[in-house]
């Protein structure tokens, strides 16, 4: 799969269709985002990141390419996209966050393996157009049902127990591909008191959840990066469900 993508990107770079490509790179065993400029560069550690779950090697490619595309002045730029990355990119376009640079982005999509899709309960583990990989079935999730079966006090206790582990690292917000506000409510002292650990709960997390309404693309990055393992996505999933289905 990785070779197919590499060949495709090399062709795009050699033909001059794109002048840069945002992919991932294996740097001494650590996977990091990297902007490739020539096809020769791709021979040095090109990676597509996580393939089977476990090692958290995914990045918010959509927000990275948004930053690059708006400042890049050298023609078109390609980007490596999974199904979730594509949903995020579409969401950023929908919110008009990439107004002038939208047509400068060339998508290079690939389908995730079944193992990874299952690990993240992915609702669409492939972008619309795939260069490589086989499209696998969407995975439904059971996490919501379990919570819905509790009574209201049980749910409150459950969330408070989860939220109170929060070390307020803002990792969930920082990694979020669709968090793009310049000023963040979570850092506004008059709304949520700053400087407290754990943060003012449940307000801190419920505020973020409400802000995710209609935006969350269910990529699971927030839950994956959370050092306290708070099941944030289960919370945002419900918000999305209410917004979409009432």
């Amino acid at each position, binding site marked *: 799969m990785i070779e197919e993508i590499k060949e495709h990107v090399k062709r795009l770079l050699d033909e001059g269709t794109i002048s840069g490509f945002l992919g991932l790179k294996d740097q001494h065993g650590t996977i990091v985002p990297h902007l490739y400029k020539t096809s020769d560069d791709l021979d040095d550690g090109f990676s597509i990141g996580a393939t089977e779950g476990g090692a958290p090697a995914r990045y918010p490619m959509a927000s990275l390419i948004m930053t690059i595309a708006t400042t890049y002045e050298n023609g078109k730029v390609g980007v490596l996209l999974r199904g979730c990355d594509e949903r995020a990119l579409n969401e950023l376009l929908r919110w008009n966050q990439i107004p002038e640079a939208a047509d400068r982005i060339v998508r290079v999509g690939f389908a995730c393996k079944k193992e990874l899709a299952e690990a993240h309960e992915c609702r669409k583990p492939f972008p619309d157009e795939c260069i490589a990989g086989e499209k696998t079935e969407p995975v439904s999730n059971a996490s919501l049902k379990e*919570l*819905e079966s509790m009574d*209201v*006090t*049980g*749910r*409150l*206790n*459950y*969330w*408070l127990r989860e939220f109170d582990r929060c070390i307020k690292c803002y990792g969930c917000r920082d990694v979020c591909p669709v968090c793009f506000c310049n000023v963040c409510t979570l850092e506004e002292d008059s709304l949520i008191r700053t*400087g*407290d650990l754990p943060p003012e709960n*449940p307000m801190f997390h*419920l505020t973020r*959840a*409400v802000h995710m309404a209609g935006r969350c693309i269910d990529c699971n990055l927030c839950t994956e990066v959370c050092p306290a393992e708070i099941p944030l996505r289960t*919370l945002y999933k*419900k*918000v999305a469900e*209410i917004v979409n289905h009432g």
Partner: protein
Amino acid sequence: MKKFLDYAGIDEERLVLKWVSSAEGPRFAQVVTDFVEKIRKLGPSPLRARPVKEEAG
């Protein structure tokens, strides 16, 4: 919003959303009075039971 509160473990009865025109003063007073009564009956919020941190300094 009510569904969300319920999911977060907060009694949805604690939230009221009503449309009142600026010309409907008496209705506004009634809505607020009714809600205050309802909240009194429900008692303190379960979140009040949590220890409140002292202000720093």
